[in-house]
């Protein structure tokens, strides 16, 4: 007589120490092996797209900050570029340089959080605190310039809200010099640690065709070996003037496209961001950052889709304008929302502890997923 067995349904509920926000994952497990993962979203839905229809174009910028709150400058950047394309205005050179430097600083800060929480989920609690101490340096540099540490409202349509602080260049250069040995220390402490490698190598292997079919982007895609970066393949702003490499996952410690590769891509991307900052920081031209900001933004009728490379992937804004001062429709293509779909494919056949490692390596932010 055969025993009737059924799979156990375990709920990693909305409140859990290591889902990055309020995400509910329903796992169907058999002992410790996972059969199916179903994410349930919507716990952080704040009707951003509906709010944007009631605001004027420049009032939407504080709302875009709150989408991916760990990388807020990227959100502002994308929206400003989209509306500028709709209006057809050019911004001064100084504005372009400062925007790029701020975006790269923000990329480093966002990757620090991603790597830190990835380590903390796996159990290494110390690198998390070291990386947050480094993030403090970046946040105080930006705080001196625009006044806020996390939700900046800095990149406006047509320019910037403030010119950079007189100390900005000196402090950024100090930070670049401070940060290089820190990456080496992080490598020694976490990346090449045998236990960390055991936990992340050969786990959650994302094959190339699955990645492209699901539409993932950012380090999730580059970890599988594809060299696709919007700053190189669809250049915006002045990224085509700088010389930087695009790190991809090579399967150094396991297979190509596993969690270690995605983690490795993030660390190398931080180094490349430092390279871009060093190339740009000495050549900021003079100018007025607020000269091109229009008094009243009333774009002609039309639609525009503009995409930027956020630290988590491709962030796209689709704006429909009907000729009035309020946008008719603002749709956000959030990278974390699209990357989260891959979770169901990646988790089949792994253990419960691996689900957490995989979720940490995809690096989602619930503010983007739910908008």
């Amino acid at each position, binding site marked *: 007589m055969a025993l009737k067995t059924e799979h156990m349904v375990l709920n990693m509920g909305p409140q859990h120490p290591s889902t990055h926000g309020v995400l509910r994952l329903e796992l169907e497990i058999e002992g410790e092996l996972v059969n199916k993962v179903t994410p349930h979203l919507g716990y952080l839905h704040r009707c951003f797209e509906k709010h944007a229809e009631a605001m004027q174009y420049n009032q939407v910028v504080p709302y875009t900050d709150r989408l991916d709150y760990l990388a807020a400058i990227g959100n502002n950047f994308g929206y400003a570029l989209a509306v500028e394309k709709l209006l057809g205005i050019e911004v001064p050179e100084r504005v372009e340089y400062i925007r790029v430097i701020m975006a790269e600083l923000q990329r480093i800060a966002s990757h620090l959080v991603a790597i830190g929480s990835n380590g903390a989920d796996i159990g290494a609690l*110390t690198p998390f605190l070291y990386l947050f101490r480094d993030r403090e340096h970046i946040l105080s540099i930006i705080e001196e310039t625009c006044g806020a540490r996390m939700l900046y409202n800095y990149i406006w349509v047509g320019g910037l809200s403030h010119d950079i602080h007189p100390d900005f260049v000196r402090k950024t250069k100090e930070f670049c010099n401070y940060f290089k040995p820190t990456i080496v220390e992080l490598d020694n402490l976490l990346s090449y640690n045998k236990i960390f490698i055991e*936990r992340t190598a050969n786990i959650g292997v994302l094959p190339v065709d699955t990645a492209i079919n699901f539409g993932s982007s950012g380090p999730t895609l580059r970890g599988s070996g594809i060299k696709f970066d919007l700053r190189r393949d669809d250049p915006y702003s002045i990224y085509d003037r700088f010389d930087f490499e695009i790190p991809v996952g090579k399967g150094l410690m396991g297979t190509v496209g596993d969690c270690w590769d995605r983690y490795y891509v993030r660390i190398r991307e931080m180094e490349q961001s430092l390279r871009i900052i060093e190339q740009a920081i000495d050549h900021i031209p003079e100018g007025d950052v607020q000269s091109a900001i229009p008094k009243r933004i009333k774009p002609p009728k039309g639609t525009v889709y503009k995409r930027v490379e956020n630290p988590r992937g491709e962030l796209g804004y689709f704006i429909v304008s009907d000729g009035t001062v309020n946008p008719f429709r603002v749709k956000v293509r959030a990278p974390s929302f699209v990357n989260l779909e891959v979770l169901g494919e990646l988790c089949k056949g792994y253990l419960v502890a691996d689900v957490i490692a995989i979720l940490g390596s995809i690096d989602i932010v619930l503010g983007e997923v739910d908008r």
Partner: protein
Amino acid sequence: MYQYFYDLTGNTILATLIVAVFPLVNVLIVALIGVYLERKVSAWIQDRVGPNRTGPFGLFQTVADFVKMLQKEDATAKDIDSKLYNIAPVLVFTGSFAAYAAIPFSSKLIGSEAEVGLFYVIAISSLVVGGILMAGWSSNNKYSLLGAMRSAAQIISYEIPTAIIVLSIVMLTGTLSLDKISNMQTAYFWNWNIFGGAEFGITKFLLIPFMVVGFIIIFISTLAEVNRTPFDIPEAESELVAGYFTEYCGMKWAMFMLSEYGNMFAVSAIVSILFFGGYHSPIGYLGNSLGIEWLIPFEQAFWFLAKGWLFILIQMWLRWTLPRLRVDQLMSLCWKYLIPYAFVNLIIIGVISLL
């Protein structure tokens, strides 16, 4: 020591009670200082400050935590199995506390001078497994059940390398009594077992690398026995909220914590007795050089506590450096790596000791 108190009072039960109070006081003090030191050491490693507001340098933090736990409401879930639920903390605490009966704190402060002390310690520590399984099952919570299953597998598997290394020491010294093993490594640190034992000769120097290997293996296995990182899967904070004691609150949770710190000290005491000379000092006795005979047991107690605390500090240091192992990797580490190395170690030590 039991004999001394029996002569004093003439009553077996009173003497037993007095003798049992000493390790209890030690466990309480270890838990008190251990919780505080864990938070402070973790803070120093992470470039923070740690508790520093309750009392000078935050010294009363554990007292504050204890008072908080005493006044908590004992909220229990509805569908628990109450008999098992209530017995589980008692069993876990007994398992770790009963091991202190055979551990010598100094040449006069020994609970019971049993001839089979080492065997007794290893056997009674396995009571903890029963308690953990009961706690996990009776909580009526899937997370607790997962944690308890993992913990039971972990503790049972890691008893084996521990036993094998203990066996190799027993082969060398020829006795199972903890007191006699300590006495064989009399004063001066070059007589310690990790440096090859007290007898001077070619065997001493041949033994040193294998003793070091044995020490590393037993240190790792006892880390796993106590559920400390990198083996703290049963209480993995980021995966299972709190593992097998998720549903406990108030004093019952405090019993689990007490037993964890008590176990930590017991296990580091065993390691220090087997390899590092037990309660003997590394540099000779002050009492001997000054001619004060009664000072020696106190000095020995001091050195014993110092060695125990040194290993606890190393355990804390490891906790804040390493990530956590996954359950199947933990099992493969034990069965595929530690046990073969321990067996080979045993055979080679046996061969060398015959020379």
